């Protein structure tokens, strides 16, 4: 029977090969600045764009010191000049403690939520609150546990618990409640336990190493730990960072069970947010909380419409506002939702509040360098000539197209069982996949043979 048990209980171990997807900016590790905030030519996956990177570095330092909140930065530049890369670099160098929320301008257009609600939620996701939890615990290894049951079977039980650390040993008298929870947790001699002093909650950390040889037969889950060091009665302090949005969510969920079942949070009432703001400010006054303004990054910001922009104007004035970084690749264009033209598709009054960083197209040398970094990232070996050809393609078409060719050329090369991508492979994928310019050229030439083009749509009646 025992053997059978062992057979059924063995957990199935499966090897899962990790499939790593390589994102467009996975090679970015930071902004690549030195201590004096000077940008290094090539560092942390960043190439060129020295001035914008330095500007981002200055802003980064201000964010780290918590000096700026409620400010906004706009990164503007042509497509493929590293706007998103700079934002990613800022995110990477902020460290895990500062909240960073990224969203694309089009993400806020959802049917379940109003645009301003989606924006509010992202604003509050980017604000962190640091709070501290302090608990007094008794932590030790159980030496002996002795429970006296009354002869009648009912009535109060009394008991003694001997705990030790490497430094000391002591006996605790146990009341009825403690005995109950000890037996519920199945605590026995040799276990290492903690007792929360305020609540009396007992948790088992594992079995002491010194008792490891007591029995041969052990459950698979038995964990062995060292006998605790130092004092028995310890103070444990844990610092947590939570976002304002998370606090909003738990507080809006407490009303009614419907909120619990809706799964996603849905809209949060403004009253709830006001309450949370008041509470957090109170905590800050009492020294119980620190507020960490994080970063909200909105890519493709020209996708926002007039209402969103006026909301942003207002939201940036709140005292619980994060640093807003926006990126756009548009020049003078129509503001969405209006007929007015404006630089970057952003209203002038909002533009006036922004610090604007401009990125410029990469030089040939920089393009070469970026392609090299991407090759390493995508694990593709490139021969010297192929590298030169690819750089030329990158200069003449676009950097993004050249980067796309790396992995496709890598595949072609592997297909012919080569180890290094040669010029032939590049040529082959160049003929297989069109870049934007050649594609438009093709369109112009063969326009007439496509479906639904201008000439046909006039002759065809599609209303029926």
């Amino acid at each position, binding site marked *: 029977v025992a053997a059978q048990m062992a057979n059924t209980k063995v957990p199935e171990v499966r090897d899962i090969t990790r499939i790593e997807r390589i994102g467009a900016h996975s090679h970015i590790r930071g902004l690549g600045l030195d201590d004096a905030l000077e940008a290094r030519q090539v560092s942390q996956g960043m190439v060129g764009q020295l001035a914008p990177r330095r500007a981002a570095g200055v802003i980064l330092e201000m964010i780290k010191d918590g000096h700026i909140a409620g400010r906004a930065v706009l990164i503007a530049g042509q497509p493929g000049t590293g706007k998103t890369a700079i934002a990613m670099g800022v995110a990477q160098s902020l460290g895990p403690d500062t909240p960073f929320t990224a969203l694309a301008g089009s993400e806020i257009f959802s049917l379940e939520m109003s645009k301003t609600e989606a924006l509010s939620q992202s604003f509050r996701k980017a604000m962190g609150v640091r*709070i501290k*939890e302090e608990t007094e615990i008794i932590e030790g290894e159980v030496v002996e546990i002795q429970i006296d049951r009354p002869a009648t079977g009912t009535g109060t039980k009394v008991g003694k618990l001997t705990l030790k650390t490497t430094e000391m040993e002591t006996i605790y008298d146990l009341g009825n409640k403690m005995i109950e929870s000890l037996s519920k947790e199945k605590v026995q001699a040799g276990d290492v336990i903690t007792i929360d002093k305020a609540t009396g909650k007992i948790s088992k950390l594992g079995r002491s190493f010194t008792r490891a040889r007591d029995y041969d037969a052990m459950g698979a889950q038995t964990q062995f730990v060292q006998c605790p060091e130092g*004092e028995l009665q310890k103070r444990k302090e*844990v610092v947590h960072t*939570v976002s304002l949005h998370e606090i909003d969510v738990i507080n809006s969920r407490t009303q009614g069970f419907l909120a619990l079942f809706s799964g996603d949070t849905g809209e949060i009432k403004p009253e709830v947010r006001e309450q949370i703001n008041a509470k957090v400010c109170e905590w800050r006054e009492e020294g119980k909380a620190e507020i960490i303004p994080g970063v909200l990054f909105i890519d493709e910001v020209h996708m926002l419409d007039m209402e969103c922009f006026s909301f942003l104007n207002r939201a940036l004035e709140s005292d619980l506002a994060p640093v807003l970084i926006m990126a756009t690749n548009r020049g003078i264009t129509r503001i969405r939702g209006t007929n007015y033209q404006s630089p970057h598709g952003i209203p002038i009054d909002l533009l006036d509040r922004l610090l604007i960083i401009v990125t410029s197209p990469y030089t040939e040398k920089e393009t070469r360098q970026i392609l090299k970094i991407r090759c390493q990232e995508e694990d593709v070996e490139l021969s010297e000539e192929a590298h030169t050809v690819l750089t030329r393609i990158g200069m003449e078409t676009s950097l993004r197209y050249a980067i796309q060719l790396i992995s496709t050329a890598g595949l072609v090369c592997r297909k012919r069982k080569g180890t290094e991508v040669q010029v032939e492979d590049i040529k082959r994928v160049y003929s297989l996949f069109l870049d934007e310019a050649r594609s438009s050229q093709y369109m112009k030439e063969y326009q007439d043979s496509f479906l639904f083009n201008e000439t046909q749509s006039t002759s065809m009646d599609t209303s029926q």
Partner: protein
Amino acid sequence: MAAVPVRVLDYLTEVEAAAEDILTTKQQIVDLDSKRNRNREALNALKHDMNHTDKVKVCFGSIFIKLPKSRTGEMIERDQEQLGKEINDLHKELKVKVNHLNELQGKPELRGYNLSPLSSDELKAVNSLLRR
């Protein structure tokens, strides 16, 4: 040229001294806690004393003195309070000392450790967030 090794030595001495200081404070806390636990045991023993006499024998150093039960109890209780306060003070000192050591070693300051803790009610409210 000779200034550099002297400076390095001075720096290392300073770091070692700061670290030693932390270890001493930690040991002090351990000693006080063990005393506190012994006192607690004594109080329990007093409470559950089976033979109903008025006086108990108390050990001071190397001599036993017979003292009234109630007075002994009071004495120990006062001692406990004193111990609790001392341990608390040592904990506070320890925090300052650890920060000082970190500063000397060029490590970043521990974040959020000068915050005052949330009360138990407030903790209960945010608990579901913290136990993710």
